[in-house]
C-alpha cells in the first residue's frame, strides 16, 4: 500500500511550509491575502508560458526551449506583483494610519515580501507534485522499467526546495527594489540568474547519473546562498541577532 509513501512524501514536501503557514501567516489576514494574490499571479505567468509553448508548434517537444521562457515569465510577474503592492501601499498610506494601526494592519514590507514569495512558492510546488502524489496512491511504485525507487522522495524534497527558494527569492526581490540604488539591479538579477540556473540544471542532467543527488545538492546550495543573501540584505549582524533573541 503506497498510501504510506504518499503520506510521507506529502509531509516532506508540505511539512515545513505548513509550519511556516501556521506560525507566520495564519494569524495575519493581510499576509494570507497577499499569498493568495501572489499565487494567482504565478498562475497567470504559467498561462502565458503555455500560450507561448502552444504557439510555437515545432518546438513543443523541445523542453530546452520552454524552460527559460517560463522562468522569465515568472520573474516578470513577480515584478508586476511588486508594482501592485507598491500601489496598494501608496493607497493605504493616504488613509488615516491611526485607524489601521489600531486594527493591527501595519504595512510591514518585509512580511509582505515574505508572504508574496511564499504564495508563489506554494502554488509552484503544488503544480510540481500534485500529479505525482495522486499517481502514488495506487498499489505500485516506480521501478518496473528500471527507474529508481527514490524518485518520489527526491521529487518531494525538490518541491520543498522550490517552495523555500521562492520564499527567499520573493524577499530578496522586493527588499532589493525597495532599497534602491545598485541593489535595484543586483537583487532581481541574482534572483533571475539563480532561478534560471536551478531550472536548467534539469536539462543539463540529461547526460548524468544519478541525477537526483546533483539537482538536490545544487538546489539546496542555492537555497543556502539565498538565505545568507537575505540575512545580509536585511542588515542583520551578530549584535542585532542577539538583541532579537532576547
Amino acid at each position, binding site marked *: 500500500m503506497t498510501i504510506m*509513501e504518499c503520506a*510521507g512524501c506529502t*509531509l516532506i514536501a508540505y511539512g515545513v511550509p505548513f509550519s511556516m503557514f501556521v*506560525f*507566520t501567516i495564519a494569524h495575519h489576514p493581510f499576509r494570507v491575502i497577499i499569498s493568495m494574490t501572489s499565487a494567482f499571479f504565478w498562475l497567470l505567468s504559467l498561462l502565458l508560458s503555455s500560450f507561448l509553448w502552444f504557439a510555437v508548434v515545432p518546438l513543443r517537444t523541445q523542453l530546452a526551449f520552454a524552460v527559460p521562457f517560463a522562468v522569465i515569465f515568472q520573474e516578470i510577474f513577480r515584478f508586476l506583483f511588486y508594482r501592485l503592492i507598491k500601489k496598494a501601499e501608496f493607497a493605504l498610506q493616504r488613509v488615516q494610519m491611526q485607524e489601521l494601526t489600531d486594527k493591527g494592519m501595519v504595512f510591514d514590507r518585509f512580511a509582505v515580501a515574505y508572504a508574496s514569495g511564499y504564495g508563489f512558492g506554494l502554488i509552484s510546488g503544488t503544480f*510540481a507534485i500534485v500529479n505525482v502524489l495522486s499517481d502514488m496512491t495506487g498499489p505500485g511504485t*516506480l*521501478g*518496473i522499467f528500471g527507474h529508481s525507487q527514490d524518485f518520489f522522495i527526491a521529487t518531494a524534497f525538490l518541491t520543498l526546495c522550490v517552495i523555500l527558494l521562492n520564499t527567499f527569492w520573493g524577499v530578496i526581490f522586493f527588499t532589493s527594489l525597495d532599497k534602491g540604488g545598485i541593489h535595484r539591479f543586483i537583487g532581481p538579477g541574482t534572483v533571475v540568474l539563480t532561478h534560471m540556473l536551478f531550472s536548467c540544471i534539469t536539462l543539463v542532467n540529461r547526460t548524468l547519473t544519478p541525477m537526483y543527488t546533483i539537482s538536490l545538492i545544487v538546489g539546496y546550495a542555492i537555497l543556502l546562498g539565498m538565505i545568507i543573501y537575505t540575512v545580509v540584505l536585511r542588515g542583520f549582524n551578530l549584535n542585532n541577532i542577539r538583541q532579537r*533573541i532576547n
Partner: protein
Amino acid sequence: MHSLFLLVYLFLQIFVVFCSQPKRVVDRMYISFDRARYCVRRLNGTHEIGCQSSIRGNSGRMYMIDNDQEFHIYLTDKKLIDSFNSFIIVLNVNLFNTYYIDYLMKHLDKKLNGLLLYLKSNLSRPLDFSHDDQCPNNRNSFYLNQTEKINWNSKGTSLFFRSFPFPIMLIDEEDDYKRLIEFYRQFNNSQSSPACGLELKAFQNAAHTTKTCMTRNDISHSLIDLQEIFCDPIGGLNIYSKLPQSIKIKPDQRSLKSVILILVTTDSFQMFLKPKGSTGGVQQPATALITFLTLAHLIGQEQDEFKKQNKEIIFVTLDGDALDYSASFKFMFDMINGYFPIGNKNEQPIKIEHIHSIIEFQSLSMTNELWLHTHPSSLINQTFIDILLRNNPMINLIRPNSPLPPASSQIFLRQTLSLSFPVYILSSTNQNQLLNHYYHSFFDDPSTLSINISTLEYNTTTEISLWIKRIVEPFAQTLIESLVGIKKNVIIKQEIINNLVYCILKNINCPLIHNVTNQSVGNTFKPFDQTSMPFSINTYPISTTPTFPFIKYVLGYFLRDRSYDIQNLTKISCKEHAYNDSFCSYTFVDGYAPSIINEKSFSGYCVRSYLRFVQSISPAFIIENYDLSQTTYPAWTESRWTTISLRLFIIPTRTHEIVTLIIGILLTFISFCILFFLRYYTKISLFQPSSS
C-alpha cells in the same frame, strides 16, 4: 536513458504544465494486460457463483507456480508467506483443478487475494479443461429423483459453480505470457529487492441471490430518474420456423400427434470470458447447429414431398439451456399455456397432445460413430428407428430406457411425465461419456475439429463439412421415408455446408447472411466482421449478439416457400403480398445462389417464410409474484460489471515506505518545533501573532 528522460519531464512539470504527449508517471509505473480473460459472478435462486474483487481491485505480491514441485516449494516457504499481506498466485492453467485450488485456499486463507492463470502457448493446452459439473445440468433435470447418476463429463471440476471471494483471470495470449515472465524473472530474485505485484480489478455489482438482486433492481430513488440495474436474467430468443404450407388457422382443428419438433441449442458457457475473444462452443452447440440448419435446408428443398403428408416439422432453437435448461422450461411453459406458436392470435395453438415426437441434435463432434438415445421405450416408433439405422450405418442405438445425456429433451419429458411423446436424441455421446474434453470451456474451438481457422475460406471443404453431409442426407431420407412412404435419395450441395461452417465458425459477416437479408438488417452484422458466432450466456436484449438475427434469417430463408423463387417479383409487389398474409413474413433479398434451383436468376427475390421468435428467459421471471427462491423453475441471472483490468507493477519494500513516512513526520515535527521556538523565545516580528 528512460530514467533520465523521465526526470527531465518531471522537472519541467514544475515550470511548464503541458507536455507534448500525456505522459504521466503512472504510465511508467504500471503495465496493463488488456487481453486477459476474466471470471464473472452469476446468481441463481439460492446461491451466487463465480468470482468477485473489491471495487478498487485486489492487489498482492505476485508469485508464479508452474508445476507441482514449485507448488509444494511455495507452500512450505513460511518466511515468504509471512512477509507479505496478500498474494496473487500466477498458476499454470494445467494446475487449475479442485486439488490445487482447495489446497491453496486452505493454506493461504485470507492472504490469497487473486488468481491469475496462464497458458504458455496454444500447443501446450491441457488435455482436459472443463469446469462444469461431472453430471452437467443435474439440478433441474429429468433425473431429479432418480438414484442412477452417470458422470457424463468425467473430467469436470465443478469450479464454475463455486463462489470465490477473489478475482480469477486468465492470460491466453502467448506474448502476454512472455512479457509477464520476463518481468517476473527480473524482479523476483531475492527477498530484499522490490518484488513484482499484480492488481486484478473485476468488481461485480450483483450479490447474494437472484431474489436479492432483482429486488435491488427495483429500488428507485425517487429524486433520481435513472434506475440502476445490478443483474440481468439470462436468456435469449427461442426461434422457430417451419414450411409455410401448412398453417392451421382457427377454427380449423389441429389433429393429434401431428407436429414433430426438431431441437437444437444455441448457447454454451465458459468460465473465463473475453470481449471479442473466442467463446468456445464448437463441439456443442456449433456443430449441432450447422447440422440443424443443413437439415432445414434439405427439408425446404424437398418441400413438395412433405406437402403429401399431414405432419408439420417445426425447427426450434433454444437459447439458455446451458444453465439448468431455462429455455426449455420457457418453451414448455408457453406450450402448456397456449402461447405456442406466438405471433398471431388466429393461429391454432399447439399443445402437448399435438406433439408427435421430438428429435434433438446434441453434442455432435466429428466422431466415427453416432448414438441415438431414446425415451420412453413405450412410445418410440421402432419403424422410424429401423429406417434411420438402415440409412446411416454410423448411428448406433442405445439400449432403450438408459439414462439420457444432458439434453433439452429431458425437460420436455419431465414436464409431460414421459407420457405424451417420445424423444430421439442424436449425439456423439455414447452410453456414459461426453467425448468432449473441453465441454463448456473456451478451449472448445475449431482446432478441436481439425479445422485450421486461419486458412478457412468461404467455400473451403473441410472434414467437418463432409461429415455433416454424411449425417444429414440419410436423416432427411429417413424423414421422407417414414412420413411420406417413399425412398428418395436427397442431395445437398456441399457449398451450402461449407458456407455455414465459415459463417458460424469464422466470420458471421459473410456473403450468406447478406444474401438472405435486406440491406438494413445486413448492416447490423458489420460491427461483427471477422468474429465467429458467439456461444456464451446471453442476457437478451441487454447484450447485443449477432446470433439471433443470423439464425432467424438463415432458418427462415432455408424453409422458405420455394414457389416464390421462380416468380420475378418486385419489392413493391412483395410488400403487397405481405399485406394480405398476416401469418408469414415477406422480405425482399438478393437471394442465396446455391439454394436456388432456377435457370433464370433475378435481381431480387421475395422470400415468404414462417418465422417466430420469443424471449427465452425462465418462467420464474415471467410468472406474477413468483418467489425467486423456489426451485420450480431455474432463476439464473448474470451480474453487471464496469471496468476489468489487470496491471503489473513493483511493490515498494516495507522499509522504504516506513522510512519515507518517518522522514516526513520528522521534518514536519522539527520545523514545527523550530518555528514554535522562534515565535515564543525571540522577538523577530515576522513570527509574532499580533502585527500584520
